[in-house]
């Protein structure tokens, strides 16, 4: 018996398999597309949630004082900007920028690593104005350079009060040239009473770091001056001076990326200062009667008038300390005379 072979079945089966493979491939592609899209959406959600969390912490730092926080950063970075045009914002990678028009946040321009460290400290002059928020990463290295043999209490005190989770170290000038590179993405040097002409060179092993990743400040322990320096090649180049009124402002300069960022945040502080001083100046008038009237003076009025121009140019407030101390002294005298206080 001879069988008639039919090619129809062969074609049919082959076509079926081709059809199955094409359809299967398209369906697989479809689901892979969904998974990839979902992954991107999840990343955006995480970034958004971190941005909201950080925004909430910055807001709450204006309420509580002397608080410390740490936020986990799952493989994302945060950029901070505060410039000479008073544009102040932060942006979590993958999320939209969030403005910080009134909150003084002293931070490097880029924060990355496993977590970020935040510390809020009250700024008073002499009454409470606002809280300053210092923000950094454990992957940023802060090097305090001072002669430890001469028991520099000022420098040591500043070093000891740095937040615990911050990567800090103290070295003497003789150890500076042998400093090792510990692969930190940013390094900040803090010098004390070093004039801008005598600033040491950058340690050789850190030479290869990018110019924007190394910076320095020199804090005057006797006056109120802070000099800022940035890296250029293997040397530090002077980047201008500013001033401080108390330790919290010194920390502001240490945590800030640059003088521009420091002064931008301080302008926010002085703007608030002007409003609060105005309230105290007006408030004092309610108590100027009876036996106490002669004790009030015009220290608070004088302070208020001197602070107002600082909101646009903080150099106008370089000599503010005596006025602050005058208000403090005035208040103390009122306390001794059992009169209502200025603050």
């Amino acid at each position: 018996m001879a069988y008639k072979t039919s090619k129809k079945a062969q074609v049919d089966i082959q076509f079926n398999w081709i059809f199955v493979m094409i359809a299967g491939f398209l369906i697989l592609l479809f689901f892979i597309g969904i998974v990839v899209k979902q992954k991107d959406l999840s990343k955006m959600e995480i970034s958004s949630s971190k941005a909201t969390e950080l925004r909430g912490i910055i807001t709450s730092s204006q309420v509580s004082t002397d608080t410390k926080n740490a936020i986990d950063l799952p493989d994302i970075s945060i950029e901070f900007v505060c410039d000479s045009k008073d544009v102040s914002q932060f942006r979590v990678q993958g999320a939209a920028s969030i403005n910080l028009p009134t909150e003084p946040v002293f931070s490097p321009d880029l924060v990355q690593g496993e977590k970020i460290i935040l510390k809020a400290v009250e700024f008073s002059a002499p009454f409470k104005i606002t809280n300053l928020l210092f923000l950094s990463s454990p992957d940023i290295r802060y090097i305090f350079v001072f002669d430890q043999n001469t028991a520099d209490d000022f420098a040591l005190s500043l070093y000891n009060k740095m937040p615990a989770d911050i990567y800090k170290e103290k070295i003497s000038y003789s150890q500076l040239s042998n400093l090792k590179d510990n692969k930190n993405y940013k390094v900040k040097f803090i010098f004390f009473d070093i004039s801008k002409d005598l600033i040491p060179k950058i340690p050789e092993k850190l030479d290869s770091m990018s110019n924007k990743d190394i910076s320095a400040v020199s804090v005057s322990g006797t006056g109120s001056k802070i000099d800022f320096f940035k890296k250029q090649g293997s040397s530090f180049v002077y980047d201008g001076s500013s001033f401080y009124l108390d330790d919290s402002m010194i920390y502001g300069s240490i945590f800030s990326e640059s003088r521009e960022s420091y002064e931008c945040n301080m302008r926010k502080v002085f703007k608030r200062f002007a409003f609060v001083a105005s309230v105290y100046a007006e408030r004092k008038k309610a108590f100027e009667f009876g036996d106490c009237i002669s004790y009030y003076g015009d220290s608070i009025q004088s302070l208020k008038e001197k602070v107002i121009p600082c909101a646009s140019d903080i150099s106008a407030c370089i000599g503010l300390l005596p006025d602050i101390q005058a208000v403090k002294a005035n208040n103390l005298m009122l306390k001794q005379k059992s009169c209502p206080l200025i603050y």
Partner: protein
Amino acid sequence: MKNRKSQVKMFETIAILVIFFFLVGIGFIFYSKIKQTSQSTESEEYFSLRAVEIAQLAEFMPEIRCSADIVTNIENCVDVAKLDAMASTGIISQNLDYYYNILGYSVIYLNVVYPDFENPVSWVIYSNPKPAAKDLGKVQTQIPVAVYDSKENKYYFGVLYADFYR
């Protein structure tokens, strides 16, 4: 008789694919509805959180808060002399743009509830409600505070209201 077997098989395959994608479509609609609901819940939570934040920011404003040198042992304290000073200088109303960055669209006011004065004692600290055309409702947060009158050296009991607009 023509053999329509292969045609039937083809239709069968196509029908399976159609039903498959129909089920996937239903799954997507279900998923997006759930996502929408959870986003709406998150949005409500965020709004409530923001309302509490605004109330706390108002309570802790150095422009109204009792100075630590004057009142040393009371946390939630508002100074009458500062409230009067703010009202007379118009510090906040003249700098609404600045304080909007802190307090947003909200109305913050304080009422003294004890002792019961003959004329109600209250201060409007900040008033910046949303324009009526954009008003989507508000949430009110109330914070009990001590109200200190440094002239009389007396404490009263008050409530700080913060109406935060969506």
